[in-house]
């Protein structure tokens, strides 16, 4: 069957533009122009069933906007997203939206903000079950919630408790249980461990890997922590100012990074067992996305910059099995 090789998620030239113009009156009276922020500007990738794609990049590079596009919280301004061969955004608009949402779920960064403090754990995890009509009656609900709690290492006795009675790591496990309630195939995880301490982060990452193995889940994993990304992902995409600059399988990206920005990010990671070694600090900062540099948007910080980089935007091309947007890499 050809279906086994067909990717579960295909994003093609996905873009999202936000209108950040001054209010109408200011535009009319002061002659201010309309302004557009290109948060995501033509991002393409594929994720195979049961695999993990990680997106990394600095704040403001558009990682979270991609996540929101995938779960249908934003409609794309351009490009398309197909899920299991189906146009996901058409589905989000139609009466099939519920069926699509059931298959794609999201885990958010802050487990303190993403759980309703006035609901019990049973109500939090039970809501998607009831909303999608997956259970009948209170007894069935309790049994299913208990099962979900056990799958993330919590106990059925936790059902009547409230979120404040749990630690950060336990709360994040409650949000994972909630995301798993509808038995989704695809989970979008937006910085799921960034708010957690390292020992707790290890617990959550281990659970996520176990669940992936047991249920064949597909993940989009967003993080700014490259060490975490290396640990969980099969493929890594590096984003800069709304565009992908490099997309490669995890091993080649970390052992042989091609894009100068990827190399810079890797050099910036503190090395633990190399005490006292100074890092090579990355020069400069991310430019204002409202007014991105011409040509390759990374050129003002790039050590290998050429004249061509300043004028011509590099195309997204395939190079020795990886994807890259750079004039210089060869």
């Amino acid at each position, binding site marked *: 069957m050809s279906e086994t090789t067909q990717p579960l998620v295909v994003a093609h030239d996905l873009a999202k533009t936000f209108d950040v113009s001054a209010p109408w009156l200011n535009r009319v009276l002061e002659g201010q122009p309309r302004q557009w922020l290109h948060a995501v500007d033509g991002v393409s990738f594929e994720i195979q069933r049961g695999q993990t794609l990680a997106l990394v990049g600095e704040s403001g590079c558009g990682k979270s906007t991609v996540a929101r596009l995938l779960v249908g919280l934003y409609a794309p301004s351009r490009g398309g997203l197909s899920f299991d061969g189906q146009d996901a955004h058409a589905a989000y608009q139609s009466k099939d939206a519920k069926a699509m949402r059931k298959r794609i779920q999201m885990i958010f960064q802050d487990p303190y903000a993403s759980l309703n403090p006035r609901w019990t754990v049973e109500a939090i995890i039970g809501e998607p079950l009831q909303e999608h009509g997956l259970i009948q009656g209170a007894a069935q609900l309790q049994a299913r919630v208990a099962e979900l709690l056990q799958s993330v290492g919590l106990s059925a006795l936790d059902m009547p408790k409230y979120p404040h009675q749990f630690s950060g790591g336990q709360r994040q496990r409650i949000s994972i249980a909630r995301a798993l309630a509808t038995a989704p195939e695809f989970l979008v995880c937006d910085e799921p461990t960034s708010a957690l301490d390292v020992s707790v982060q290890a617990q959550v990452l*281990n659970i996520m890997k176990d669940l992936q193995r047991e249920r064949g889940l597909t993940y989009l994993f967003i993080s700014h922590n490259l060490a975490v990304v290396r640990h969980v992902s099969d493929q890594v995409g590096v984003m800069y100012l709304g565009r992908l600059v490099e997309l490669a399988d995890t091993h080649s990206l970390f052992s042989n990074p091609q894009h100068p920005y990827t190399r810079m990010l890797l050099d910036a990671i503190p090395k633990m067992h190399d005490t006292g070694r100074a890092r090579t600090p990355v020069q400069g900062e991310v430019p204002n996305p409202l007014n991105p540099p011409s040509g390759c948007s990374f050129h003002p910080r790039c050590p290998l910059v050429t004249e061509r980089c300043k004028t011509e935007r590099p195309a997204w091309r395939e190079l020795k099995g990886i994807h890259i947007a750079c004039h210089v890499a060869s």
Partner: protein
Amino acid sequence: MSLLQVDNLVVEFPSRHGTLRALDGISFDIAPGEILGVVGESGAGKSLTGAAIIGLLEPPGRIASGSIRLHGQRIDQLSNDQMRHIRGRQIGAIFQDPLTSLNPLYSVGRQIVETIQAHLPVSHQEAKQRAIRLLQDTGIPAAAERIDHYPHQFSGGMRQRVVIALALAAEPQLIVADEPTTALDVSIQAQIISLLKSICKERGAAVMLITHDMGVIAETCDRVAVMYAGRIAEIGPVHQVINQPAHPYTSGLMAAIPDMNSDRERLNQIDGAMPRLNAIPTGCAFNPRCPEVFERCRQERPDLMPARGTQAACWRVEGAV
């Protein structure tokens, strides 16, 4: 002689349900020019230790016993007024979020000049010149123009540079930096760390660097103290603590960090969570989570004792040296 000596520091919070001990017998010292890292998970008492030293404990928190000495002089019993002269002049502070440590309504120049004039007898013109030099030293381009800008006109990394300039304004000998790079991207983090390091070496200032990021500690510090549930679990030279930790908590913590150089399928996890202040177990506070626990750990609390090259509060290391 050490610049800062903290001896058996105990910080308590009286509450309706009895008194909570947030710090319980913390002792360490910092030599001039030394960078001491303080690392631990949320709630271990890292920031509280920093706050106690700079005299900014939030009431009802109070120092119940122990002492803090700067240049051999006790500073833990000073009045707020006396402490205000030490803070800024002798101890500088850098906090996590640069946006909340700067006043949004004043230009950064005005804030730095104000700090300089509050502590040093210089004219406004001199103070302004100094402020420009400080901004240059912290790597802000076009400092002479930027000095009249407001905090919102700076990016996150630049703002943190302003905060560092502010902390250095009156040339303090000790800087308490509480998570100075946590709110920054990894690329900017490296810039700030190397700045902090070079500026302290040049000026011979001692630094207490509080962070939960072992990577930052590894590249920056001379010594490191690992905190757990309000106590120091292990303290020693940084390469020793990272490569050959003696305390089971330190080794667990090190193994939980995803490493760029290893291909482990699963990360080591320390099951459970740090106890709450009102439910600290008897004996060693780490005993319910410890893989090497034995009877004595549940009954008697270990103090810091010499271990392989470090000091660890653990019964396992007793007699092992």
